[in-house]
């Protein structure tokens, strides 16, 4: 039952991403709300649940995407990694959330670059452009993390609670 609640919650997040968030690209770079959600939920709920939430986010991205199917795997791995290493981050609650999102953004970026290199057989862009995309993504995702962290903390109680 909880997994279905999460799935419907993530479908709402998907609508928010494709209707509003994706309209506001900064230097052509879009924020990834699913990545932010996976990292924030993994921080709050741990590695195992982070894995499941990442997997659900990835499935939604793969179903509604166009090209390669790899988000399910990358997002699940990200959720697991963030949940596993959250204990190593020291700081305030908000600080931990922001650090987790930045770490997830960098890891996701590297994972996707690796996979795309595997699929295309060549790097997608010059290192300087890629670095620019990574820096802007980190800032943009951090901003979203700052905005969505209270919502995640609130919804965690509702979504995880047994009926």
């Amino acid at each position, binding site marked *: 039952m909880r997994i279905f609640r999460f799935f419907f919650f993530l479908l709402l997040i998907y609508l928010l991403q494709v209707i509003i968030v994706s*309209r506001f690209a900064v230097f052509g770079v879009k924020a990834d709300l699913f990545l932010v959600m996976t990292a924030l939920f993994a921080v709050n709920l741990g590695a195992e649940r982070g894995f499941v939430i990442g997997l659900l986010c990835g499935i939604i991205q793969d179903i509604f995407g166009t090209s390669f199917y790899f988000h399910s795997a990358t997002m699940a791995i990200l959720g697991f990694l963030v949940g596993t290493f959250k204990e190593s981050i020291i700081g305030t609650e908000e600080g931990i959330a922001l650090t987790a999102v930045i770490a997830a953004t960098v890891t996701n970026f590297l994972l996707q670059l690796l996979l795309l290199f595997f699929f295309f057989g060549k790097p997608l862009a010059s290192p300087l452009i890629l670095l620019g995309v990574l820096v802007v993504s980190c800032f943009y995702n951090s901003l979203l993390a700052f905005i969505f962290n209270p919502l995640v903390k609130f919804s965690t109680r509702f979504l995880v609670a047994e009926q």
Partner: protein
Amino acid sequence: MYYNEGGRKKNVYFWIIVLIALVIVLNTPFIKRTRITRTIRTVSSNIIYPFKYLGNAIYDSFTSRFYDFIRVKGIQKENEQLRSELEEYKAKVVSLDQLSNENEKLRNSLYFRAKNLNSRFLPAEIIGRSGNNWFEFVEINRGSADNIAVDTAVINKEGLVGRVCEVSKYSSKVLLVTDPTSAVSIINADTGDMGIASGNSVGPLRIRYMSANANVSIGDRIVTSGMSDIFPKGIYVGTVISVDKKDYDIFQKVQVAPVVSFSKLDKVFVIIR
């Protein structure tokens, strides 16, 4: 309750391996050619479409509220209708203008011109955008119910937007020319040299297979060549922004800035032929 963290983590490691294996299997050409994955995507798009449409309508009503204050409702409606018609004509003019300027030495030009003039421009609105920085697509509010098929060209008043890559009943996904899996046969409108424009996600378009002997300079206009059945001839794609020619290469590296501002993409036209 008994909680074996080590055992649970081992389970997760097992599922990670399964997922990686699935990534490899699902992305093999054999599986990608089958209809299973495409059907799942089409059905999902049909289910989510009303929510997307409603969400967009709510968003648009909020953003246009400011304009509603300063416009009389009737005039606004008429204005929107006229604007839609104007954009359609502008899109036609872009196509016709390029057609009139194209190189007369190219074969079959009259055949393609006639084909293009008979096309119908179906207006469509963007209802969804890709959330990923690597794969560039948009979703439009037209589908198989409007006679849209896969590999139909999509343009706007500025030039080429992309091609339809997935169709469900009431919506379609349009693969933008900036997507790394996109390839468009192009021609230099100023010199007549041909090549293939491929997307680059975050950067400008790259022209592949442009011969080292081709005379390309910065500022040259690049238009579709009409060599494929997807894109009609003469649609404006972009302008050359860099040329890298080396003595030992058989092809030169050319970069093109797309003419369409994809971040501001709002209304498009599907070319029904």
